[in-house]
């Protein structure tokens, strides 16, 4: 600890004193945060306490909007759609990401770098573009898969039918995000000390035992993080169904997902206050689900 000259002022540069410093460092971020997240949220909450009517304008409604959301079949129908969606899509997506991360980390494949980059590439594609591309691919009469099916004399796959739409959307989301989650797991795996792997091999464990008994538990924080993000992303689904609507207006209705519902309430029905209330209730549902999930899994883990 060098202790040179006489410059030992208690200050440390005028206004960059140690006490003030954290606030100053925090300030730019916090200012933006308040301006573009806190303020709009407060405003949205304020809006949600009012009803917008074409006759009579804006009227104070108190909690009436929230009561209405609680009983709104369209809202809960949309939530249910996404629960079904998530229960299938999230485990598959995260499972694949985990598998690939472990395999790549283990190194027992050729062309590791190519795989790492290739899997991550879909994440670079904006969801809007992805929806457009998959829309072309799903084409019921002239899409490439239909062309191939016809060539083989098979019935064309009905990607855009009501029964299949959820899975078709799930496919797009999976395609987009497996790479992203894989990268997170891969980074976490790299943080595990390598002597653990050595030790376990010496002890005679097989590769998959090592994965199951050592890597997974150590990976748990990362997995929990991605699950929570996935819950969040799933319940907020908007871009993909919004763009698929043009291809299948009869399947994706205006309340297919809660965000679509809020959007159409605001833009078509001009019910801004109610749309805000819907968004808030959605936020509560998301936060609640994440919290409950964390509680359950923590309890499960501490019981082990």
């Amino acid at each position, binding site marked *: 600890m060098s202790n040179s000259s006489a410059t030992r002022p208690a200050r440390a540069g005028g206004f960059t004193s140690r006490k003030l410093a954290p606030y100053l460092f925090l300030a730019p971020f916090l200012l933006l945060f308040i301006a573009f997240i806190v303020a709009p949220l407060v405003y949205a909450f304020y809006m949600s306490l009012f009803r917008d009517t*074409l006759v009579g304008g804006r009227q104070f409604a108190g909690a009436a909007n929230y009561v209405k959301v609680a009983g709104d079949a369209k809202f809960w129908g949309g939530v249910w759609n996404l629960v079904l969606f998530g229960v299938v899509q999230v485990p598959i997506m995260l499972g694949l990401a985990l598998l690939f991360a472990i395999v790549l980390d283990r190194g027992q494949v050729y062309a590791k770098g190519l795989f790492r980059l290739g899997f991550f590439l879909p994440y670079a594609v904006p969801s809007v573009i992805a929806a457009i591309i998959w829309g072309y691919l799903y084409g019921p009469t*002239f899409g490439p898969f239909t062309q191939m099916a016809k060539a083989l004399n098979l019935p064309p796959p009905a990607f855009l039918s009501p029964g299949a739409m959820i899975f078709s959307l799930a496919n797009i989301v999976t395609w987009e995000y497996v790479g992203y989650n894989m990268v997170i797991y891969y980074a976490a795996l790299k943080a595990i000390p390598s002597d653990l792997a050595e030790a376990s091999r010496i002890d005679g464990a097989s590769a998959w035992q090592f994965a199951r008994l050592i890597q997974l538990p150590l990976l748990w924080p990362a997995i929990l993080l991605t699950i929570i993000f996935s819950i969040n992303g799933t319940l907020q689904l908007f871009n993909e169904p919004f763009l698929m609507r043009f291809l299948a*207006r009869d399947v994706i209705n205006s309340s297919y997902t809660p965000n679509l519902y809020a959007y159409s309430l605001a833009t*078509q029905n001009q019910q801004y206050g109610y749309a805000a209330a819907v968004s808030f209730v959605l936020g509560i549902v998301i936060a609640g689900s994440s919290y409950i999930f964390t509680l359950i899994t923590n309890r499960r883990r501490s019981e082990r």
Partner: protein
Amino acid sequence: MTKIFNPLGRTMQRRDFLKVAGAGLAVAALPAAVRAQEPVKVLLWSWVPDLQLQVDMFNAAHPGIQIELVNAGQGDPEYQAVRAGLQAGSGLPDVVQIEFQHLESFRQLDAFADIGPWANQHKAEFPEGTWSQLGKGDVVNAMPQDTGPMAMLYRKDVFDKHGITPPATWAEFADAAKKLHAADPNVFLTNALFSSGDWVNALLWPMGWKPVTRDGDKLVININDKIAKDFAAYWQDLITAGVIETKPGFTNEWYTGLDTGRYATWLTAGWGPVFLTSVAKTSAGQWRAADLPQWDASKFVTGNWGGSTLAVMKATQHLPEAAEVAIWLNIDPEATKLYTTKQFFFPTTKALLSSPEWAGNKMDFYGGQAVNEVFAKSSNAVAPFEWSPFQSVIYQSMADEFGAALNGNGTLSDAFDRIQDAVVAYATEQGFTVA
């Protein structure tokens, strides 16, 4: 909805709205005397491609009034901007493009000025059905820019092959549908566009359907009346028999269906003929136009699908100038003629509708037929129609409920009932007194 097609693929310049606002502020700051010599700036929002051409013509002919043209989005995005401007009390243009079907919705928001004093002298230049939508009584809120009277485009080759003649009544249409599909299971007489609420509306229109009308202070909502039920029964019959398809329109699949002859007709509006030429290229020369089938052979009445107006906002600071803009751009002979040749609009003025040049234009795509004549005839037979003050909500509900019905959730008739319930609930909740 106005269908814009522009095979040449160029649109007008955009101007920075902020620049205009800034310029407006600067002008307002000048002393009045100086200001009087400055041309009045009128801000026009429109998504019409290449409208700058007509704007330039106007600017050249009016040294005292200059139009600033901005494309604020096509359809919904622009309407949202207008609503936001109405809420915020600022940021509105002087003249704005609004489709016929949404005029009443904005009237509900008290968005418009009355340009009757300047416009009523031109009333005789437009068909009655068109003019009646511009305002009640002597009040005029907007000027018609383009319309979409309904008729039928059909594939002559498909008809000839199966010995079918263009049906003149809906009864004949149903028979032809069954006959055609029986002869060739891969062909359908038409693809009914239940995915497009405005298309359904256009077919109910000539039947005298009055979904939402005002009776004094009250709103009368009759969406699922006998007319709707008859209509639903008619189409449900054809759908159940499997002789027509109901796929969503304006998708690649649908275009290719038209092109390959899977669909032998397209019940469409005046902008349809040119639109078809750009999406069904390989079937050029095979199409023809015929009158819209009628429910009653002794009368000839049609409906309208799409079309826009230029409306003048109440918030404008320059009412006479704005009125002049809205009016001139839609009555000037050269400007309106340019709409038909450059933007391929279906004209609104009687002058153009009956002009030999436009009406007699023989199109190769239609085997040399002057299809515009068919649609011009339809234009003069469009019945009056009253729009609701929340048309977006009705279209949304139609899309949702027809979609549900076509996917097995009840019949079209049930769908109309559900729409009725939804709209009544919405109207009541919005403060209307529903009779």
